[in-house]
C-alpha cells in the first residue's frame, strides 16, 4: 500500500469513528435529558400524529424559517435539499450493484452541486453584508461555510472540469467497507475533497452541525399540546417535596 492510501484509509476510518461515536453520544445525551415542562411553541398540534407533521414541515420545508426570512429560507433550503440529493448520489460509490433509485437521481445530484454552491454563496454573502448577521458570526461560522464551499467546489471540479478515476475511487471505498484495501487514486482534487469531507465529519459532533439531530429533540417543536389532558412529569421533578410553602 502506498503512503497516500494508508493516510486516506486511516483518515476516513477515524473520521467515520469520530462522527458515529460523537454523534451517538450527543444523541444519547439529548434523548436521556428530561424535558420537565410542556413548552411547545403554540399553536401546536394536539396529537402525536400532528407533531410528526409539524416536524416534517420543519425538516423538509423549513417552515419556521420561511415565516421568518425569505432570503435565508431560499438559500438555506436550496443548499440543504441539494446537499441531500448530492449525498444520495454518492451512495453509488458505496454500493455494488448500485441501487435503482440511486441510479435515477444521479443527474439531480450532479447538478444539485450548483444549487449547493448558490445556497452557500448566498448564505455567506448575508453573513458578510447584513450587519446583524455579521455581528453574531464567530470565525467558526465563516470557516464552516468555507469548508462546505471547498467540498462543493472540489466535487464540482471532479464532475465537470477534471474527471477523476471514479472506478478506482469506488473500489477504494468498497475496499474500506470490506477490509479489502485498494489503492487511493493520486488525484490532488480528490485528495482535497476527501480530506475536507473527513474534516467535516470530525467537526460534526462538536459544532453547530448538531442542529441536524438537535431539531428532532427540540421540545418547542416535538411536544404534543395536551398538558391539561395528560399529566406530564419528569423523574427529577417527581421527587420534589409536595408542600405549598417553603418552611424557611
Amino acid at each position, binding site marked *: 500500500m502506498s503512503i497516500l492510501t494508508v493516510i486516506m484509509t486511516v483518515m476516513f476510518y477515524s473520521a467515520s469513528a469520530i462522527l458515529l461515536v460523537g454523534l451517538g453520544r450527543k444523541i444519547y445525551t439529548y434523548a436521556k435529558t428530561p424535558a420537565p415542562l410542556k413548552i411547545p411553541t*403554540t399553536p401546536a398540534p394536539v396529537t402525536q400524529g400532528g407533531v410528526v407533521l409539524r416536524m416534517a414541515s420543519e425538516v423538509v420545508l423549513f417552515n419556521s424559517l420561511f415565516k*421568518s426570512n425569505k432570503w435565508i429560507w431560499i438559500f438555506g433550503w436550496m443548499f440543504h435539499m441539494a446537499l441531500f440529493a448530492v449525498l444520495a448520489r454518492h451512495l453509488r460509490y458505496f454500493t455494488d450493484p448500485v441501487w435503482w433509485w440511486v441510479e435515477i437521481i444521479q443527474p439531480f445530484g450532479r447538478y444539485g452541486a450548483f444549487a449547493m454552491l448558490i445556497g452557500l454563496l448566498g448564505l455567506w454573502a448575508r453573513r458578510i453584508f447584513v*450587519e446583524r448577521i455579521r455581528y*453574531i458570526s464567530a470565525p467558526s461560522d465563516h470557516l464552516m461555510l468555507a469548508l462546505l464551499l471547498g467540498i462543493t467546489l472540489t466535487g464540482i471540479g471532479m464532475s465537470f472540469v477534471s474527471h477523476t478515476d471514479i472506478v478506482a475511487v469506488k473500489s477504494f471505498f468498497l475496499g474500506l467497507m470490506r477490509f479489502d484495501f485498494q489503492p487511493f487514486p493520486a488525484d490532488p482534487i480528490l485528495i482535497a475533497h476527501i480530506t475536507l469531507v473527513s474534516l467535516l465529519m470530525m*467537526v460534526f459532533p462538536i459544532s453547530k452541525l*448538531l442542529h441536524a439531530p438537535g*431539531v428532532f429533540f427540540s421540545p418547542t417543536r416535538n411536544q404534543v399540546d395536551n398538558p*391539561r389532558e395528560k399529566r406530564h412529569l419528569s423523574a427529577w421533578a417527581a421527587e420534589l417535596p409536595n408542600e405549598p410553602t*417553603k418552611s424557611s
Partner: protein
Amino acid sequence: MADFEVPELKEHIEIPELQEGAMAHSQPFVSKEQWQQPLGYPGELVENWEQAALDKMGDLLGKYRSFQVFLDACVKCGACTDKCHYFLGTADPKNMPVARQDLLRKVYRRYFTFAGKYFPKLVGAVDLNKEVLDEWYSYFHQCSQCRRCSVFCPYGIDTAEISMAAREILDAVGVGQKYCNEIIHKAQTLGNNLGLPQPALKDTLLDLEEEVEEDIGVPVRYPLDEKGADVLLITPSADFFAEPHIDGLIGYGKVFHQLGISWTMSSFASEAANFGMFIGSYENMQRLALRIRKAALELGVKRIVFGECGHAWRVAYSFLNTLAGPFDFLDPNYPVPQHICEVTWDAIQKGQLKLDPSANDHLNVTFHDSCNVARGSRMGNEPGGQFKIPRAILKSVVNNYHDMPRETICESTFCCGGGGGLLTDDLMELRVKGALPRMEALKHVHDNYGVDHLVAICAICKSQFTKVMPYYGFEMDSILSLHQLVGDALVFDQHD
C-alpha cells in the same frame, strides 16, 4: 417626561441599525438577603461564584433538554435577529435573540464543549468573569420571555428558556432581581404578589359588590373563601384594585352571576401570576402552584377557572397539572384549569348570555394577543383557540372591531414590553422602548380605522400599557379588560 429618548412611531416597523451598548446601562435593582434566603438562594454574590455558576449551569444542562439542545443547535442563521421587540425598540445588538443567547452560550462553549475548551477564539467562547456576569444580569433582564423568537427559529430555540436558565444561575450565585424575588416571597407567604392580607381583600371585594349593585342594580357577588362553591377563581391580584384590571374582575362576576355559577376566590391562593417561571425556578414555581391545589381542596370546589393574566395562563394551562396535579378530585367534565374566556365563550355559544354590543358603541377597539397566551398556551379544543376565542367574545360585545396588522398579532404578536418580570419602574426606559412595535401597530389601526382602545387579557399588559401609552401620545386609559366590555354588554335577566 423621560430622561431617555422615546422612539418615534413610524408608519411601519423598521429594523434599526445596530447601536452597540445602547442598553448596557439598563439593569433592575438587585435583590437583598431578605428576599433571596426564603427562595433558597444566597443573599449576596458568593465567594466562589464562578464555580457555583458553572455548577448550576451543569445542573441545568442535565435537567432541561431545552437548555442543552438550544445551546448546541443554533447555527447563527440570523432568522431571529429582527424579531425581538426590545431589539426593535433599542437597537442594541445584544437584544437580538441569538446575541442574547450567545452571552450564555459563549460560556457554555468555553467550559462544556471540546471546541470551546481547545479553540475558544475560533468559536467565540469566553471565560466567565465579573464582566460577563454583569452583562448577564443586564441583558437577561431585557428579555420578557415572550417566545416570539422561538416562532421564527428553524429549530424552535426559545430565548425564554435561556433567559430563565440564566436568571436561575444568577440567583444561585446570589445576584437575584429584587422585583421578582420580593414578589415571589410575598406570594409564597401572603398568597398574592401585592401582599394583600385576607381582611383587606375581603373589604375590597365587599366594596366592589356595593359599587356594582349601585351601578347596575343587580346584586352581583364577589365571594372570598366560601367553602362549597363550584368554581375557584384564580385571578391576578392586580384585578383587586388596579385600573383597568378591576373592571375585568367586575365582568367575571357578572358572567358568573348571569350563569348562576356559584364561585369563590381564595385568600390563600389569591394570585394567578406565578413569578417563579420568570426566574426559571421549578421549585419556586411549584410552591406557588401547590397553593392553588391546597385552596381547591380546602374549599371543596369542583372547577378551577383563571382570570385574565398572560404568563399566569401559561403556567396554569401548560404547567399546573405537572406542578400540582393530578386534579382527579375536581369535576372531570371540565378541563383543569379553565380560562375565564373559555367559560364566557361557551356560555355565549349556548345562548346563555344575552349581550347588547351597542352598549360599547362609544368604543372602537382592537385586540392585543398577550405573548404567553399566544405562544405558550391554548384555549378551547383546537390549536389557535387562544386567538379565536377572545376575538369571538370581543366581536359579540362590540360593534367596532379591527385587527392590527397580521405580522403583529396572533402567533406573531409583540409583547407589551413589560412581561417576564420586567414590570418595574427601575426598567422604565426598557419598557417604553420595548413597547414600540406594539405602539406602531396600534397607531396603524388608529390612523386607518379610528381605533381608540386596545383590549387585553393580561394583568401585566394592562399595567404596562397604562404606564407607557402616554409616552407615545395615547391616553393612559385606552387599554381595557376584555371582561369589562363583556360585563358592560351583558343584559341581565329580569327575574332576579
